[in-house]
């Protein structure tokens, strides 16, 4: 009953890992044994140090780029009601250490000669106002300084949740602004499951296709239709997918949609060079792959059609609907509602779709701390829109 172990227990050499820093900044790095991983002002550590270590822990960077597990503090009990105390006057002069002294400590910290804890201790001891602060203010002060000086980080798996969150925050344009809640709804609405055959258009560099692949097992298949000659599904390379998972993806250029595959007829002259022969081999493999992909497409009856496109959505859907099976889902994502309205209207007026819905997802994160629970003060403006519908089977002619 215990299933195959899927989750990476520890960081492996060659993995991509998301490194979350105390500033809540993050970066994706590829862990190669000989590299140093630089976290800017949070220091650098040897990638080899992380190999074999568990995800989800907090590690502190020590002298020489080694790392050690860091114990997290639990909830503190500072009281919000003291947050606004009458006597305190904000004054940068209450810090007795000079700018130069603090800079010196920072340099020593980067070199690993002094720990963040020691810096923060120095700062608080030399801050005249610190003792006058309420517990709430003290806690806030220390947290702020920790974010500034702690040379610690948490390695996170490149799961769909984490990768989508990473790009949404740091490069939303790359993934067409799809937020993880919206992406999750795409997966649910499209009824993605282990051995589904899915037709997909993903002009967001493969974020959607990565999510589809992550839910696939043996028998599952994703066929991605892309513009240009080669697909740009860059996001996939961060996912640490197994070769088996990667093999579930086929891709086809729009320009080949109506392509007729002729038999492969290239003949080499008798005294062909090794290069010529290798070239023919390559072209033959390409021909076979294209032929196979087109066969797959034209077999039709796909289990879902999932679209995130820079083109006119209605024009895309019109072209691909013939390949979608009956009682299967059409799911279209876009950042703008206006980009979906024409398709929405067309789907509703068509006799081939049921349950046509245009929805917008709404997500809210909270800070949960004793006495200080509230929604986060800043948030994303929006996570995108989904247009979905149930596709009907064409009327049968045999009765």
């Amino acid at each position, binding site marked *: 009953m215990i299933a195959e172990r899927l989750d990476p227990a520890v960081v492996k050499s060659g993995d991509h890992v998301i490194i979350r820093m105390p500033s809540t900044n993050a970066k994706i790095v590829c862990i190669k044994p000989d590299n140093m991983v630089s976290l800017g002002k949070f220091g650098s550590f040897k990638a080899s140090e992380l190999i074999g270590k568990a995800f989800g822990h907090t590690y502190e960077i020590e002298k020489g780029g080694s790392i050690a597990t860091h114990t997290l503090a639990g909830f503190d009990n500072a009281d919000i009601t003291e947050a606004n105390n009458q006597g305190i006057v904000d004054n940068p002069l209450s810090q007795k250490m000079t700018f130069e002294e603090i800079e010196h400590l920072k340099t020593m910290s980067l070199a690993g000669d002094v720990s963040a804890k020691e810096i923060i201790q120095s700062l608080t001891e030399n801050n005249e106002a610190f003792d006058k602060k309420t517990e709430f203010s003290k806690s806030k002060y220390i947290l702020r300084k920790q974010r500034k000086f702690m040379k610690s980080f948490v390695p996170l798996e490149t799961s769909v949740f984490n990768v989508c969150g990473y790009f949404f925050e740091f490069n939303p344009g790359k993934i067409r602004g799809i937020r993880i809640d919206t992406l*999750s709804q795409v997966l649910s609405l499209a009824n993605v499951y282990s051995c589904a055959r899915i037709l997909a258009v993903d002009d967001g560099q493969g974020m959607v296709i990565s999510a589809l692949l992550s839910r696939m097992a043996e028998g599952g298949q994703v066929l991605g239709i892309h513009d240009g000659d080669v697909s740009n599904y860059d996001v996939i390379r961060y996912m640490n997918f197994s070769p088996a998972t990667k093999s579930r993806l086929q891709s086809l250029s729009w320009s080949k949609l109506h392509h007729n595959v002729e038999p492969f007829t290239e003949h080499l002259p008798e005294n062909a060079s090794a290069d010529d022969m290798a070239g023919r081999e390559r072209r033959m493999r390409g021909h076979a792959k294209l032929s196979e992909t087109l066969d797959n497409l034209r077999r039709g009856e796909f289990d879902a059609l999932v679209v995130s496109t820079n083109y006119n959505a209605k024009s895309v859907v019109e072209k691909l609907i013939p390949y979608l099976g009956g009682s299967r889902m059409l799911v279209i994502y876009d950042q703008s509602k206006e980009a979906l309205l024409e398709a929405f209207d067309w789907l*509703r007026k068509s006799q081939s779709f049921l349950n046509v819905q245009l929805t917008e997802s709404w997500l809210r994160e909270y800070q949960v701390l004793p006495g200080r629970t509230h929604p986060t003060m800043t948030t994303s403006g929006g996570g995108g829109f989904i247009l979905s519908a149930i596709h009907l089977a064409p009327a049968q002619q045999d009765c």
Partner: protein
Amino acid sequence: MFHQYKTFIENGDLVVIYLNYDSMLTVRVATDGSLNNKYGTFRHNDMIGQKYGSKIQSQYGKGFVYLLHPTPALWTQVVPHRTQILYLPDISFISSYLDLRPGKVVIESGTGSGSFSHSIARTIAPTGHLHTFEYHEIRAEKARKEFVEHNLTDIVTIEHRDVLANGFGVTGIADAVFLDLPAPWDAVASAKEALRRDTVGRICSFSPCIEQVQRTALALDEHGFADIRMYECLVRDYEIRSLPLPSIDEAIDGQKVNFKLNKNDRKKRKLESGANSLTSQEDGNSEVMLSKPVDNARGHTSYLTFAILAPAAAS
């Protein structure tokens, strides 16, 4: 059915009968069976051999219905509500956060009406497993019956059990734990016990009230869970209307303008099933497509509290 699509309807299959967007039901197709509703009598024999997604006529051509393939999303819309159920936005977000994929082992408590259970099973099949626990005996029985009818018994094990008193009875096997309990904090210790310790374990607690979140977060913190984060997820539905937006020059010239809502869309929706009639009336070409949120929306379902349990020992 729920984790394997079929193309044709066969005897014994479960079919979702779609009347309109807020009226569906399920039937198990049986030779010579029939379904009666206000649109007429529909013979099961007419369904057998049809493709899923077909429209069939009633016996005397009075009306029609659509035959749909069961999916967890449709099941959520037709499931008999024995409790408050989870809907697609929460289901989707929780599934992603808990990183559910084929092969994962999941614990759910309580089973409730089984809406989420079907979705979990679909996502972790064929190699994963869901252990679901329900302390209300009648609900547990009903859910068990559904899992059998839906051929989910290889993916789902349901147990009637008071997990607050007795724990989950498993140790170190679960990739993820989902709690939908009135007092989830009392299940945190058992959840920790049930989670794997060789990799990151994940937990989600689903509670409508903020006070439940506050107590659960404290319990998670006390039991060594980390990265405690809390979210809410909802969706907003939009409708579109085609309306004339005439220039004010018409009013200045004293013209009468007809602002009436174009009722086409509403008609179209009604015609999704029911009496046969025509629907292809074209819009006036001076109209503009306007969308607006549907008037009444779900304002809250529950707060979703997540945490991770880092592996026991960092090597």
